């Protein structure tokens, strides 16, 4: 068996995803074994070669960092997230109607809720266009930065 034959054997192995081949011919035996890809280690600490994560991108001006929101159940929905820490109020006052409920249509400038912190009532704008399909928090609930407030079906 010469080099050309060896190359052919290797080609056959690759074409057919063979890991090991043993050939016996005229009293001579040849075994070719392909190096297997490293098995995944059991050590939780070692990752697959992952690139170093860049610092998380600052949210877009006005703060609706959808990238950090929990995964949407339904693809294509946009999440309005809290741009600050505060207490969520769904309406301008206890007796008034809620700013946004399921079905409410919003535009970029629509106020969707109030987040109160340090006695200041901050009006939070939708910053997107579409229809509210889910309200994620309850009135008077404490919310943290980045927490999902509403899910919106973009128009």
């Amino acid at each position: 068996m010469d080099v050309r034959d060896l190359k052919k054997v290797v080609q056959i192995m690759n074409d057919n995803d063979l890991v090991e081949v043993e050939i016996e011919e005229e009293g001579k035996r040849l075994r070719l074994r392909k190096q297997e890809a490293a098995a995944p280690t059991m050590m939780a600490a070692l990752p697959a070669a992952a690139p170093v994560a860049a610092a998380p991108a600052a949210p877009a001006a006005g703060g609706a960092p959808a990238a950090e929101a929990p995964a949407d159940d339904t693809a294509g929905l946009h999440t309005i997230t809290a741009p600050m820490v505060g207490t969520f109020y769904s309406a301008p006052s206890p007796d008034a109607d809620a700013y946004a409920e399921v079905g409410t249509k919003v535009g970029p400038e629509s106020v969707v809720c109030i987040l109160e912190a340090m006695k200041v009532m901050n009006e939070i704008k939708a910053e997107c266009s579409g229809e509210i399909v889910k309200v994620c928090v309850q009135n008077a609930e404490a919310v943290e930065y980045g927490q999902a407030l509403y899910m919106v079906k973009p128009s």
Partner: protein
Amino acid sequence: MFQRILVANRGEIALRVLRAAREMDIDTVAVYSEADRDAAYLDLANEKICIGPGPSAQSYLSIPRIIAAAEVTDVDAIHPGYGFLSENAEFADTCRDHGIEFIGPDGETIRQLGDKATARDVTLAAKVPVVPGSEGLIEDEHHAVKVADGIGYPVLIKATAGGGGRGMRVASNKISLRAAFHQASQEAQQAFGEGGVYLEKYLERPRHVEIQILADSHGNVIHLGDRECSVQRRHQKLLEEAPSSALSDAMRRNMGRAAVRLAKSVNYKGAGTVEFLVCGKEFFFIEVNCRVQVEHPVSEQVSGVDIVKEQIRVAAGDKLNFDQKHVKFSGHSIELRINAEDPAKNFRPSPGLITEWRAPGGPGIRLDTHAYAGYRVPPTYDSLIAKLIVTADDRATCIQRVERALAEFHIGGIKTTLPIHAEIVKNAFFRKGDYDTGFVEEFFSV
């Protein structure tokens, strides 16, 4: 005692505070930025709350975000750690204005001691030696020369609005002083918008020795001994030890008393550090740090006092339950700051995933760290990832133990300053305790 405390910091010092509070059965709230979302230490807190994106200005340095978090979690007090807002008088005042105790001194005290001119006045009034210098700002070059003649050359011209080593010039005689005075004033005007300068004696290769103090709100002030912090690279401490080899017993006593006297004179409350420069047998006040410091563990190790717990107690109004005479010092302790930096590349930050973490253990080993295998060091903050604190009966044994601990310590995946520490403790001058603030530059050309 407080029911719930918010920790307004991150990393190893946040973990330190969480540990102390947990041992005191106080509930905790940890704030975090998005860059710290996955940090394991957050799970030691009863509650954690995201306050903003990675950049400090929008998270750990943001007074509104932290106060908002404190409000929604209904805490009684905030521990500011070190750095960030820990010496921000406005933050201290804002906390208290919102009915939340700030674990530290009053805003007014922070202001007083933070301004270099008033701090100097207050210190002189307490009969604590300060670096010889001008009384107030220098009016013109004649005044400069007159003051310099009085204090002796070389002198340092410092911008009153400067800081962090900026706005300073050395002059070694009358002629260079005149020129330097004009240049410094101009630079100060341009850099800080305020051209005022003052003069200080330039101390050549001093040692940096500081005194840890603790004060309650009932007028009791004690000190917990000295720390030597002269191993510095570009004014950043690398290694600290307690006690200092620079001090005679008499100096130690006098410095301790001076620090306590100063603290009493400003009705200090909480933990603090009075920093001195030591030249031979003389010591000179430079500044007060109104917070718990990175290197507090070495003082804890030799005194047996838990400084963070005492901070919480005094902030809650408790009296210190020991006098100076009850404080007994024993043994020697050395802290190594392990930074995520590459010493071979000019200490360039080396953030990223820690793939291996084999920590030292055994007698006399304390490791204050929030890092572990699998932890990703974010690029957004300072590079301190661990403090290795080694304690033994005496300094020689302590150094031996440091070498042993360093041989065991392995961090993989990122570069760290571990190798530099091994070099430092091998150095003959370090081993003799004969070193000053010029040490790192002299021996390590870094």
